[in-house]
C-alpha cells in the first residue's frame, strides 16, 4: 500500500511539474497584460511535435528535441504578441485579443490535423524504457529527466524574476504598468519578453509531455484546461501559488487514477477549483495588501 502511494506520488509530481511550467507561462502573461492567451495550449502541442520530429531527425537525441521545442515556443510567443496582442492593445479592447487567440488556436489545431492526422503518435524517448527500481517503486529515466528539467526551468525563472533587473521590471509592470513606464521601462518590450519566456516554457513542457500524453493535435487542450485551473487555484499572477497548485493537481490526477477512476480526474480538479473560489477567491497564497497610512 505504501509503495503504491509513493509510486503514485512520484507520478503525480512528474506530471504536476509539467503542468506548473505551462501554468507559469499563463500566469506570467496574465500578470503583465491581464489577458489570457488561448493559443498557449497549441504552443504546448507544437512543442511536443517539434520534439518528436527533431528527436527522430537527430537519431534519438531527445535533448535536441527539447531545445528545438523551446525555440519554436519562443518564436510562436513572439508571433502571437506581435500579430495579435500588441496591435489590438492599441485599440484598448479587452475582449478582442481573447477571441483572436481562440481563433488562432482553432486554426492551428486544424492545420495540424491536416498535416499530422488524428491518430496518436507514439513518442518514445531513449529514456522511456530505462527503468530504475527502488524497492517496489519504479522510475523511468524519462521521469527523472522531467523532474530535473522542470526543476531547473522553474529555478531559473524564479532567479530571473527575483534577482535580475529585467525580472524586477517585469514584476513592476505586473503591479503598475503606468508607473513602470515612468521608471524608463518600456512596458511593450517587457510584455514581449513575458510572451517569449512563457511560450518557451510551454514549448519545452510540450516536449516533455509528448511522451506522457496521447500525442494528437489536440494534446495541448487537455493540458491547458488543467493549467487554467492551476492558475486560478494558485491565485492569478502568483508564482509560488502556481507551483504548489500545479503539484497538487498532478497528485490529485495520479491518486484519482489509482484509487477512483481516471474519468473522474477533471471532476475532482474542478471540484477543488470551485471549493477554492468559494473559500479563498484570491488563491492559495493571498498577497497581503496592507493599508497605506
Amino acid at each position, binding site marked *: 500500500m505504501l509503495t503504491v502511494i509513493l509510486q503514485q506520488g512520484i507520478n503525480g509530481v512528474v506530471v504536476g511539474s509539467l503542468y506548473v511550467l505551462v501554468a507559469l507561462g499563463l500566469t506570467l502573461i496574465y500578470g503583465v497584460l491581464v489577458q489570457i492567451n488561448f493559443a498557449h495550449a497549441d504552443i504546448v502541442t507544437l512543442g511536443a511535435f517539434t520534439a518528436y520530429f527533431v528527436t527522430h531527425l537527430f537519431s534519438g537525441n531527445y535533448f535536441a528535441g527539447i531545445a528545438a521545442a523551446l525555440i519554436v515556443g519562443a518564436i510562436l510567443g513572439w508571433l502571437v504578441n506581435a500579430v495579435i496582442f500588441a496591435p489590438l492593445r492599441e485599440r484598448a479592447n479587452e475582449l478582442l485579443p481573447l477571441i483572436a487567440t481562440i481563433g488562432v488556436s482553432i486554426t492551428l489545431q486544424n492545420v495540424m490535423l491536416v498535416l499530422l492526422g488524428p491518430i496518436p503518435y507514439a513518442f518514445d524517448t531513449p529514456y522511456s524504457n530505462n527503468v530504475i527500481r527502488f524497492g517496489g517503486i519504479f522510475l523511468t529515466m524519462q521521469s527523472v529527466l522531467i523532474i530535473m528539467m522542470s526543476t531547473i526551468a522553474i529555478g531559473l525563472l524564479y532567479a530571473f524574476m527575483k534577482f535580475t*533587473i529585467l525580472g*524586477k*521590471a517585469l*514584476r*513592476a509592470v505586473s*503591479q*503598475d504598468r*503606468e*508607473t*513602470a*513606464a*515612468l*521608471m*524608463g*521601462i*518600456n*512596458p511593450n518590450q517587457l510584455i514581449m519578453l513575458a510572451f517569449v519566456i512563457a511560450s518557451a516554457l510551454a514549448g519545452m513542457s510540450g516536449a516533455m509531455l509528448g511522451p506522457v500524453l496521447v500525442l494528437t493535435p489536440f494534446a495541448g487542450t487537455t493540458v491547458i484546461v488543467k493549467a487554467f485551473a492551476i492558475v486560478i487555484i494558485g491565485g492569478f499572477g502568483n508564482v509560488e501559488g502556481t507551483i504548489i497548485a500545479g503539484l497538487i493537481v498532478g497528485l490529485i490526477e495520479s491518486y484519482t487514477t489509482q484509487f477512483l477512476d481516471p474519468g473522474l480526474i477533471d471532476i475532482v480538479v474542478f471540484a477543488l477549483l470551485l471549493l477554492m473560489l468559494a473559500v479563498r477567491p484570491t488563491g492559495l497564497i493571498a*498577497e*497581503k*495588501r*496592507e493599508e*497605506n*497610512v
Partner: protein
Amino acid sequence: MTPLFAAEGLELAYGQVPACRNISFHVEEGEVVTLIGANGAGKSTTLRAVAGALIPRAGSMRFHGRDITRLRPDERTNLGIALVPEGRHVFPFLTVRENLELGGFKFRKESTRVRTLIEQMFAMFPRLRARASQNAGTLSGGEQQMLVLGRAMMSEPRLLCLDEPSLGLAPLVVQDIFRTIRSINAAGTSVLLVEQNARYALETASRGYVLQTGSIIVSGSCSALKQDERVHQAYLGRAAVAAGSQVPVSP
C-alpha cells in the same frame, strides 16, 4: 536662453472628454515652479502630459529646446524628466531597495552607479535604509512618499515633477518632505510642483500658475500670487488651508 522645459498651447483630453485647454508654461533651469488649483482643475492631467503618460491633442512641449511632444514616458525619463505621480504609486510587492533600483532603470548597465545612487538615497532618507528589504506596500504613507521621491531621483532627472507630495500626510511629515524638495532643488534639479496646499507651494516655488477648470487663469512670481485677490480668496483663506493640510482629498 531657452527654458529647460516649455509647454505651448496644450489641449488635453481623456478620450472625447476635454480636461485642459490652451495650457502654456515653462520651467527655467534651477527653478521651482508650482501649479496650483482646486481639486479637478487639471493639475494632474497637465503633469501626466509633461511625463508623456497622456499625449496632447494639440500643442507642443520642448525639453532643452528639443521637441518631446510625441515621446513615450520611458523616453522622457531617459532624457531627464521624472514624475512622482499622485497617490505615490510605490510597487507594493517589491522591496524598498528594488523600488529604488527600478528608479535607476536607465543606468541598469552601470551597477556601481546604481549602488552609489541607492546609497545617496539612503543618506537622504535614513528611514528607508532601515526598511530596505521590506515590501514597499508595508511602509507608512510618509515613508512611501520618501521612497517615491528617492525612486524618482535615482534617474538623476533635470526636471522633477511632483504631484501632491503632501497628500494625506501628517503636518510634520509634510514639513520634512518640503525640506527635502528644497534641498533637491538646491542641489541643481528643477522642480515642477503640483499642490493643493497652496501655502506650502507658494513658499517653496519662485513662480506659479493657477489652474481653474482646465485653464491657466493667473501666473506670476509667488510673492505676487500671494497678494492676488483671487488666489487669496480661493486657496489661502483659513478654511482652504485647513482643508488642504488635514483632509485627504480623493484624486
